């Protein structure tokens, strides 16, 4: 983070307030333990350990990272709009976290498995989940509308932290399948567990560290530190940087610029490689920012000042990649235009798909509660059918 930003506060924002906010973060971002490969201004910088992991990326890969981020941001904006219009009951926006999600999502191999929270729309995208399916639970038509095993992307988990244990258990299963450390790149498998800065306080998350360390399971813990857990700043959850939590459990932790898609990709790739090769777990803290509200139900003006948001705008993950692609001549204006067009089309598709999403059949609520026959479910289903039929004349 250069001084440049402090020198250029955004329009209408008190320069002193911005400076006060920028200082502590700038210290972190300038620190030796912070992995960055692309500055906020879009300059490629080198890192002794991690540059190698992006060395093989083609220009097309880099343009792909850009495309992913733009599309997912557009999707996210459309979902927010759909919520405002009453088409969704709620939406948890990923705005600002695109690089953290796309960088990590693209580092996964097909056989890897991801366990998301409820905000990993960008990871879902990278895994190939139909974005429309992500809307189901927010629209209230289901609790999760995709087959986790189709894209090795588990359902969203709303209970904070619970999925981290599932991830470790899945990774233990990988070990039991001898699909780790064989050297076969298509066989060796790793798991990635997403969670938030707030979640780091939960017993389950810490137990997942215990189990992963104890079993040396091939799991990468990916914490998106977006600075907030609803209204609670990250300092409430941890007085030291979250990546350092791993030290207490005996595995490595690393902090990466979560708004730098290259650095996130590199760090995640390295961690996944390490896990797949049998080296055990690792914790990544992607230092990023939740640009919007916690969810559409939230009112962040109650607990944070807008200057903070303005400061983080200067670190936008998409803008910096665009600057880099442009200055390095890896993409031309036509490419950017195409992506915009594609984003428009995606948004249109998602909107149309959402509006067309039918409400579930009332009788369907009795389905899939149990795999095997269940007398009480059967009785209630029958009772409900008879009860519903009794109204049939009336409507």
């Amino acid at each position: 983070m250069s001084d440049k930003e402090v020198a250029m506060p955004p329009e209408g924002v008190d320069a002193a307030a911005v400076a006060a906010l920028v200082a502590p973060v700038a210290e972190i971002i300038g620190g030796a333990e912070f992995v960055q490969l692309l500055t906020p201004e879009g300059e490629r910088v080198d890192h002794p350990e991690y540059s190698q992991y992006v060395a093989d990326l083609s220009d097309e890969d880099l343009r792909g990272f850009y495309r992913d981020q733009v599309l997912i941001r557009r999707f996210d904006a459309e979902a927010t709009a759909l919520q405002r219009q009453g088409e969704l009951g709620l939406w948890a926006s990923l705005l600002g976290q695109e690089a953290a999600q796309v960088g990590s999502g693209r580092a996964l191999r097909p056989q890897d498995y991801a366990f998301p929270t409820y905000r990993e729309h960008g990871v879902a995208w990278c895994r190939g989940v139909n974005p429309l399916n992500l809307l189901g639970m927010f629209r209230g038509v289901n609790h999760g509308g995709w087959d986790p095993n189709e894209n090795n992307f588990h359902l969203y988990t709303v209970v904070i932290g619970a999925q981290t244990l599932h991830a470790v258990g899945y990774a233990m299963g990988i070990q039991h399948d001898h699909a780790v450390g064989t050297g076969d790149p298509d066989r060796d498998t790793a798991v990635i567990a997403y969670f938030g800065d707030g979640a780091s306080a939960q017993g389950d998350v810490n137990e997942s560290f215990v189990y992963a360390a104890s079993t040396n399971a091939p799991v990468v813990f990916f914490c998106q530190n977006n600075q907030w857990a609803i209204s609670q700043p990250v300092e409430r959850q941890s007085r030291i940087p979250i990546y350092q939590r791993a030290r207490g459990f005996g595995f490595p932790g690393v902090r990466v610029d979560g708004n730098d898609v290259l650095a996130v990709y590199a760090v995640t790739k390295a961690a996944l490689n390490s896990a797949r090769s049998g080296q055990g777990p690792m914790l990544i803290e992607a230092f990023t920012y939740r640009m919007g509200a916690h969810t559409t139900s939230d009112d962040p003006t109650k607990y944070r000042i807008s200057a903070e948001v303005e400061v983080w705008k200067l670190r936008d993950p998409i803008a910096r990649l665009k600057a880099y692609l442009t200055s390095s001549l890896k993409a031309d204006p036509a490419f950017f235009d195409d992506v915009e067009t594609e984003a428009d089309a995606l948004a249109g598709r998602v909107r149309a798909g959402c509006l067309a999403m039918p409400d579930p059949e009332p009788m369907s609520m009795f389905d899939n509660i149990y795999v095997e026959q269940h007398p009480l479910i059967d009785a209630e289903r029958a009772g409900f059918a008879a009860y519903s039929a009794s109204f049939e004349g009336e409507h």
Partner: protein
Amino acid sequence: MSKVTIGKAINAGLRRAMERDPKIVIMGEDIGKLGGVFRVTENLQKDFGEDRIIDTPLAESGIVGTAIGMALRGYRPIVEIQFDGFVYPAFSQITCQVAKMHARSLGKIKLPMVIRIPVGGGIGAVEHHSESNEAYFAHTAGLRVVACSNAEDAYWMIQQAVESDDPIIFYEPKRRYHEKGEVDLTATSAPRPLFGANIALVGEHLTLAAYGPMVKVCLDAAAAAAAEGKSIEVIDLRSLSPLDLDAVATSVNKTGRLVVTHEASTFLGMGAEIAAAIQQRCFYSLESPVIRVGGYNLPYPPSRLEEEFLPDLDRVLDGVDRALAY
């Protein structure tokens, strides 16, 4: 008299209790500046400070466990659980520690704690935000469980709960937070004891027992039934543990019929206990079996199905008709 919402009534009750007793602290997630996701603690931190309105880390076992420690030190903690579905990480602390501390210490330790839980469905929320888990806690000896249904009760019950020396699970009817009622904010004593039921409507032909968010449904159902000449007595149970069975039995001995309703799944829900107790106590006066109208025995469904899942006026009336058909 003021017309206030249930949410604001609880806020006012909390405020009054805190003014009276400096040992009261409130602990929970996002209860400070944000005022809680339902704004029930709005402005309390501003007025009572961060020492008394304590924003905690995001870990429920930690909230309840440290609240126990605060109580051991002489404080009277009120814990806010953000949503019903997020109380389970604290289940061990609640069932093994909160519920048992007084007995375990042969009475040497008191744990005057209130655990507030916004409960139930009907708000179009995502998974885990619409649970009715009162039966778990009502089955747990050592706890008391209460549920308010209207603004006046909300205002008084929270104050009474805070004053009790026993630990209390305090249920707030989430989907009714915004419903208004008359409350005399200047009155100096509660209209009724915390652990007693309230006859919300006097009737003759059948007793309808409910609590929390379902009381309004029952009152509406009773009004609809009245139009058809059926006189229904509505009991707002208010306390689920202990249950005011005397009130229910007295009513059933008069009407001869009982329908119990709640949002929770019927199987082993509160209605099971009430039916089991009343079929014994009122064996000779019951003219029909006790009928239960509850949520189906499914995990709470996606919100677009909650209207079908939750007992509504029609389903309550269907239960009433079934009882009257005997």
